[in-house]
């Protein structure tokens, strides 16, 4: 026991001098030059272009389709323009907050968000619209394909009450369950159920993974499910959900949120950039402004990420290598 204590004591007294020693050696190491890293540094990228572009801060909103947009644009900016790209994982709300402080340069897939548009574009003037992405957002009620096949008339909302019993769950209190997902998305579902006199109850899944997992299980086990969904979405490549037709959308039919009795409008998804970034003259701004692709393009990249488990960088690179002419058009 005594001897054991001895050893520790020695260490205690030694601490300072040894610490100093390692610190000095470390310092020496850092100041000294040599090895192969300086070479790696210069081979790494177009350092001349880097000065022109500088840093490019891309918000990454938390869904895979958005990730596809972000990493494709980011990779092009890095490879072709020599930008230093920072990806920032943020919810929409927080991402828009970052426009004013310069922490976020662009949001690459915006789904409407009238309240944010009003606050940051109209009032604060910290953000501007940078045009459409070419993707069309469709929101609505969907059923798994097996149900559409077995009950062909289920895709008309008028027949939903007939099937309400099928959709009963432990959560829906005796009515049919209409499953809603991530609370960030605009939904009119409670009003719709009420105004269309449907014998359904809206149940909140709470997140996108919960919603997708529910649809996946429903198709796999042939259990009934109806829920809120949207495209573009990589999951539709895995399970092609079938949309239920609600009364057609007409301009202004959703003006009063409590009285909505019509389908969701189609969203032309757009890009938002910070005002500072727009006037900075960065080549990345031109890239963002020109960036445009189809739902199929996005679903392809999102599928590489979600289904093939590729890293977002690798998925983006794969698509970029396969579509050189589309990329070239963005760089003009």
């Amino acid at each position, binding site marked *: 026991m005594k001897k054991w*204590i001895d050893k520790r004591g020695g260490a205690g007294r*030694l601490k300072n001098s040894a610490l100093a020693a390692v610190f000095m050696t470390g310092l020496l190491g850092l100041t000294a030059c040599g090895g192969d890293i300086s070479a790696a540094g210069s081979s790494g990228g177009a350092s001349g272009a880097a000065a022109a572009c500088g840093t490019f801060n891309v918000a990454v909103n938390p869904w895979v389709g958005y990730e596809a947009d972000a990493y494709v644009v980011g990779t092009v900016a890095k490879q072709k323009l020599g930008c230093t790209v920072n990806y920032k994982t943020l*919810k929409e709300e927080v991402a828009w907050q970052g426009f004013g402080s310069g922490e976020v340069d662009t949001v690459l897939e915006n789904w409407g968000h009238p309240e944010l548009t009003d606050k940051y574009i109209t009032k604060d003037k910290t953000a501007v619209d940078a045009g459409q992405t070419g993707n069309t957002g469709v929101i609505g009620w969907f059923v798994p394909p097996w149900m559409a096949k077995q009950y062909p008339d289920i895709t008309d909302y008028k027949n939903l009450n007939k099937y309400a019993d099928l959709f009963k769950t432990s959560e829906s209190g005796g009515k049919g369950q209409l499953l809603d997902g991530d609370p960030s998305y605009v939904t009119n579902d409670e009003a719709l159920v009420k105004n269309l006199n449907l014998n359904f109850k809206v149940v909140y899944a709470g997140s996108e993974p919960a919603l997708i997992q529910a649809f996946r299980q429903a198709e796999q086990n042939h259990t009934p499910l109806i829920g809120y969904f949207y495209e573009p979405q990589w999951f539709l490549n895995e399970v092609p959900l079938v949309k239920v037709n609600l009364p057609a959308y007409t301009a202004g039919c959703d003006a009063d949120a409590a009285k909505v009795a019509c389908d969701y409008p189609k969203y032309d998804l757009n890009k938002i950039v910070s005002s500072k970034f727009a006037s900075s003259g960065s080549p990345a701004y031109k890239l963002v402004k020109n960036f445009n692709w189809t739902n199929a393009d996005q679903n392809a990249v999102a599928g590489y990420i979600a289904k093939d488990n590729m890293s977002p960088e690798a998925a983006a690179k794969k698509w970029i290598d396969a579509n050189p002419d589309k990329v070239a058009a963005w760089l003009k």
Partner: protein
Amino acid sequence: MSTVTSARERKAGPAVKPPASSTEARSASVLSTLRRQWRRTLLVAVVLLWVVLWAVLHGTQTLEIGGADKTDVHLWLNSVRDAFDSARTNSAFFEYVVQPITDGVNGLVTFLQSLFSQGTATRPVPQVGWLGVVALLAWLTFTFAGIRSMILVAVCVLLFGFFGYWQQSIDTLIVTFVTVVLCAVVGLPLGIWMARSKRASSVLTPVLDLMQTLPSFAYLAPLALVFGIGPAAAIVTTIIYSLPPLVRITEHGIRNVSPTTLEAVTSMGGTAWQTLVKVQLPMARRTIVVGINQCTMAALSMATIAALINGPGLGQPVLQSLQSLDVGGAFVSGLAIVLMAVMLDRTTTAASERSVVAARFQKRSRSGLMPGPKRRVTIVTIGAVLAGVAVYLSHSYLALAQFPASPDLGSPLASAVSNATQWVVNTFAGFTGWLKDTVTAALVDPLQSLLAQAPWWVMVIVLLGVALALGGLRAAAVTVVCEAVILGTGLWNESMKTLATTLVATLLVIVAAMALGVWMGRSKIVDSAIRPILDALQTIPSFVYLVPALALFGPTRFTAIIAAFCYGVPIATKLVADGIRGVSPVTVEASESMGTTSWQMISKVQLPMSRSAVVLAANQGLLYVLSMVVVGGLVGGGGLGYLVVAGFSQSQLFGKGLAAGIAITALGVMLDRITKYTAARLGRD
């Protein structure tokens, strides 16, 4: 999730009944029996009243409000947020206080990242490469914690790399380090102050409660508004959650320094400062290190949440995997967090044990009795030189700077886990569906109906009566205040729904904890087999098992209950096991000699004698369950949890989300105090 302190405080209390031989004690025990019967009568009366009133009035005056409806309080909270937002640009406070802090923290983290984890615009790799980092960490642990810790650290750190999360792991280490240092700078003085001043303690305790129980989702967005998007906001979020355990444990440690020692020092003419620095701090050292250890664990548990506002580290891959429902990927990154928790926990514990020994030795060595052995000096010095060389090499050579891509342990492990999960889901989906439906119909629905469908004033009276019967007057007083707060948030009905799922989850936790805890408490082998699993369940981010839970149970309240169950069981089980083991061996032997069976032993001796430990386990289980309400909201739990999530996602619902967060806190404080006072009473009887 309060608190480790309470656990320690209770354990210190008397667990064994004093012998009641004198007449005085006998009459006291008669009185206490009477009192207990009075409590029981009250409890029965309250429950009867509740059921009768519910039967007559259910569905009326439930204070239910629709999903998009907002009360004045919610709108007011929104307006406060907006005022904050506009004040940000032209306020001196922001410019001269908040901004420098933000810049300072961001600068520090970026600097450390450029040193150890990430390249910069001018250099593609960090200044110190992987080899240097491994060598430095190994040398540091060897010097401060010994050879066993060194091996553990080296293996863990290399595993992070082989899992494919080298950079994220080092980022997490950096963020945790900065957080813990800042916590120590703020928390130690606070803890000392609270130990020395009753008033400071009574003012700060509710604040600490609030910091620990207010769900971070509720304040994440405004924090990002104040501290910007970057490491600073993530670190502040983490500090809010991880500071309280450090402060509480420090206070506890200093207050528990023996009063006789303090008197001796005062009588020798020591000043207050001398007493603190020379006596209280050194004597409380071990406890304070426990505080730092708990602070570190709490900081790690925030990694995933902080990633929501772009906090660097391992939380990012967890969230990213969750988006594409990649169970394997989420598991591997979650496992890295577990390994880091194990590594930091064992290392800080070892270092603290050693420092105590070293301190004791130093005192003796001053008298010149024991010169230090040369051998160890030499080893540490050689180690330093080796580490220095490794740092230099990893600075200069790319292969030693960038972690090698192979062997890649991450991908095979991820796909194995994915396949295993798939198999479990396919095999058990039928059974789990039945289980979900049964528990929901038998427990969740009736209880929720009783709680949420009864008129609000009935529930106010019922909760008050229960608090009075179980916890006494003080518990009832707290309950009144908490009820007022919940009513004030305008979310009474949602709160009752959340209370229902919380109670069901807690019930399941207690049942499981009793079974497992008794088993562990009676057998050392079982204990050492189960404990690591419990540790892992406690530290793995819950986001990792949400997807399999969803696959098995669908987005339902039951899934939320399961998630809470997984998180609450470990702590409750450990407390029950400790309680069982704490039963005096003499008593156990005595009953054994009288020929009791195992079952009699458990039910008549061990459980009754560790009654207060069981109630404490219920208390902690409850609080852990409650801290999962928001996670439950992500998987269909509804109630307050969903509102908090919605408030984080939609700006117009911010106020409602914050109000829901406050309601969760009020529920937590209420349940905590009721169970705590009950435990204290049972410990006394």
